């Protein structure tokens, strides 16, 4: 009986984690591709400022980010109030809130590899495409994306993995609602707190294995690229 219940808690945590990581990755790719392209081709003085803003989650303690998001999500402040008026619910302690936080938190892991690949792209190919009648969007789809395919894959993997691995931000804004906001890393923490080491072992080993497989795939991808 207890074991079955535990199974469900772990199962739910896996489901929430996968759902969160997939949704976040999808949004990150849609926002990250144009953002990285814009940054790679930007010459204005605003560029380092934008780059710093994008990269902030890499150096900031997750709790700081979580704290400010919590403040922003509060219905007493403008973003939270707007969201409440629009949807009738609050962002804090909701799955949507987690998605918003994850997107911000994992943004640099998607934007930076893409930007690096875009910067290294042979711009001569784009000129060549332009003289053959391809407009900017056409060039992006037919030349830039296929030329940066590995970086796109790498960015998606990093975004996904980093979202799976987040803890601090989720704890601050998502709390610990099983089936809604309880992701694996939180469920693991909770299991240890309640001295449920069987579940803790299962989840820890699962996350370890996932990270290992992902990194091995990424490094072999990079090896192929250098060849």
């Amino acid at each position, binding site marked *: 009986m207890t074991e079955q219940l535990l199974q469900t808690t772990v199962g739910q945590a896996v489901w929430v984690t996968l759902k969160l990581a997939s949704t976040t990755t999808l949004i990150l790719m849609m926002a990250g591709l144009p953002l990285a392209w814009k940054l790679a081709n930007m010459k204005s003085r605003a560029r380092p400022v934008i780059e710093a803003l994008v990269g902030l989650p890499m150096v900031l303690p997750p709790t700081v980010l979580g704290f400010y998001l919590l403040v922003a999500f509060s219905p007493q402040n403008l973003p939270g109030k707007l969201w409440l008026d629009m949807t009738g619910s609050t962002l804090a302690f909701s799955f949507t809130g987690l998605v918003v936080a994850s997107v911000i938190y994992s943004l640099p892991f998607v934007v930076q590899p893409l930007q690096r690949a875009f910067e290294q792209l042979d711009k001569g190919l784009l*000129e*060549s*495409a*332009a*003289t*053959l*009648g391809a*407009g900017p969007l*056409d060039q992006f789809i037919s030349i830039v994306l296929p030329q940066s395919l590995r970086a796109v894959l790498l960015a998606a993997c990093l975004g996904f993995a980093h979202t799976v691995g987040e803890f601090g931000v989720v704890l601050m804004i998502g709390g610990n609602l099983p089936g809604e906001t309880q992701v694996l890393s939180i469920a693991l923490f909770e299991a240890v707190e309640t001295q449920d080491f069987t579940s803790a072992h299962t989840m820890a080993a699962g996350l370890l294995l996932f990270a290992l497989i992902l990194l091995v795939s990424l490094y072999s991808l990079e090896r192929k690229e250098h060849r």
Partner: protein
Amino acid sequence: MLLLDIHCERDAFQLQVRESFSLNGVTGVMGPSGCGKTTLLRCIAGLERHVQGSVKFDSTLWQSEAAFVPPHKRGIGYVFQDGRLFPHMSVRSNLNYGLRRNRKYLDTASETLSFEHVVEWLGIVSLLDRPITRLSGGQRQRVAIGRALLGSPKLLLMDEPLSALDWASRTSIMPRLREINREFGVPVLFVSHNREEIARLADEVVLMDNGCIEERGPTRQMLNRARGSLADDQALSVLEAGVVNTDSPYGMTELEVDGRSLMVNQSNLRQGQQVRVVVPASEISLCLENISQISIQNRLLTTLTDIQDIDDHHALVRLTLDEQALIALITRQSRHRLGLKLGITVYAHFKAACLEVV
């Protein structure tokens, strides 16, 4: 007709061009490296950002104070020095890239015809399904030329398309370039620092130096002279000739230039064909009397119409046939030994083997 009034400033370089080009056939732009040839081509294509002024092609304003037509809407073709083929596509997809995007201007029948036509004409049928990475330099440039042509350009811009190639590939592509204008009826603006390429291909020569157009004129008029910026030890002359006899003994072909007979050792020419012969000035020697007991086949009777010392040792001599002229490079010592003067009659000797016929 291409009307240019442009000013482009970049780093320490300035391009200032105010010219109109009638663009009949092949226009060859020539000049030392760094003189702005490539920048000029890029300005016309719309690839150069920091350019002011106006560019007008036929009745379309490509650039003015108020407007700028981006390169993908100019309907041009551009062959880059390094080919710039798309490495993630096969040869076929590269060729189709421009074709697909300009399909709306064409009807289906003429379009398929032109794909096969271009591919066969360039001799790249067997390469169609190869990846770009498995092509030689010469094959790459052929594909690049085909790709540009298949976009059905109204103007074809070529930036040193042969300079990265070895001699053999260069020689095999050159005749194709000469035919482009006739075969597809598209005007060509061709940039090169190689005088021989220009001599073989261009109908009109534009000389550039230091970001400005120095001089321009029909190819023969620009090259066949003993003065000006092309008067140096690399000088060469261009003759327009007709093929009169292809069955001469020993596989020789007889050409006619200004009523004089010229033998060349090239056997793939057709009777009646008009050809261009390129004669390097250093290959011509002068003789004041007609000697027949000599291995040299080509001995043309000419009149000396200009002579000019070009450095401490050499002089260039202009030898007029009737309409056309040859340029010979001799030493200043010979000039004085032979007592060369304007108006005297001279036999110009040159070997059949040194001639380039295109």
